[in-house]
């Protein structure tokens, strides 16, 4: 990670989230890396594509008594702003084939179509895929 130590060089980082939450650990791992990485003052974006859109669906209920007994980390996406991670993008096609709209999501996001998403990825220095 020598590149990250170059003083004053701000790079464009994109975290690409493509997995549903809870079934695998990818979604939570990605979120934790984002929060840790936030200390490095880079230009960070998050993209939610494919099943990754499900990560930010509202109304998760994972309680021990009535549910699966795992941590509901969907609530944590709401602190990203406090960590100065403010650029969240959702691919329109992924959202639509799941019957979801912007109103179903727990945080404000910018909706991009497939071409815009591809363009966003093309302009990154680093894409971290989860």
């Amino acid at each position: 990670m020598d590149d990250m130590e170059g003083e004053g060089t701000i790079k464009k980082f994109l975290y690409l989230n493509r997995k549903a939450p809870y079934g695998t650990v990818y979604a939570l791992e990605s979120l934790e890396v984002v929060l840790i990485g936030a200390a490095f003052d880079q230009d960070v974006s998050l993209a939610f594509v494919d099943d990754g859109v499900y990560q930010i669906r509202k109304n998760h209920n994972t309680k021990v008594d009535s549910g699966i007994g795992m941590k509901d980390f969907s609530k944590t996406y709401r602190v990203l702003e406090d960590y100065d991670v403010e650029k969240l993008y959702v691919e329109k096609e992924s959202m639509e084939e799941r019957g979801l709209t912007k109103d179903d999501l727990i945080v404000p996001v910018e909706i991009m179509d497939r071409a815009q998403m591809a363009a966003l990825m093309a302009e990154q220095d680093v894409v971290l895929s989860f």
Partner: protein
Amino acid sequence: MAIEVNGKSIETDEEGYLVNLADWSEEAAKILAAQDKDASDNPFELTNNHWEVIHFLREYYDEYQIAPAVRVLTKAIGKKLGKEKGNSKYLYELFPYGPAKQACRFAGLPKPTGCI
């Protein structure tokens, strides 16, 4: 590892953080605090100013499921409790081992994400 609270044994990890969030009580917080030393090498005692931060952290965790990093905590405390408390000098004076690390432990939260 474990601590004894009101005759009941409560599990902690190797760094002294509670394993189960639900095991926390104010009594547990006092016992966790007393494991540390204050500036005069006496067992750490919790004042109202400490409790204010501890309760803030528990509410924050309940709402966001995360123990905040120091700079985020400082900002959030400032918003909630005022500027004179929302700065790292104040928080480090209260919790000399680090406001996030030490206060989170007393509050029964896991170690903050990104804290080494």
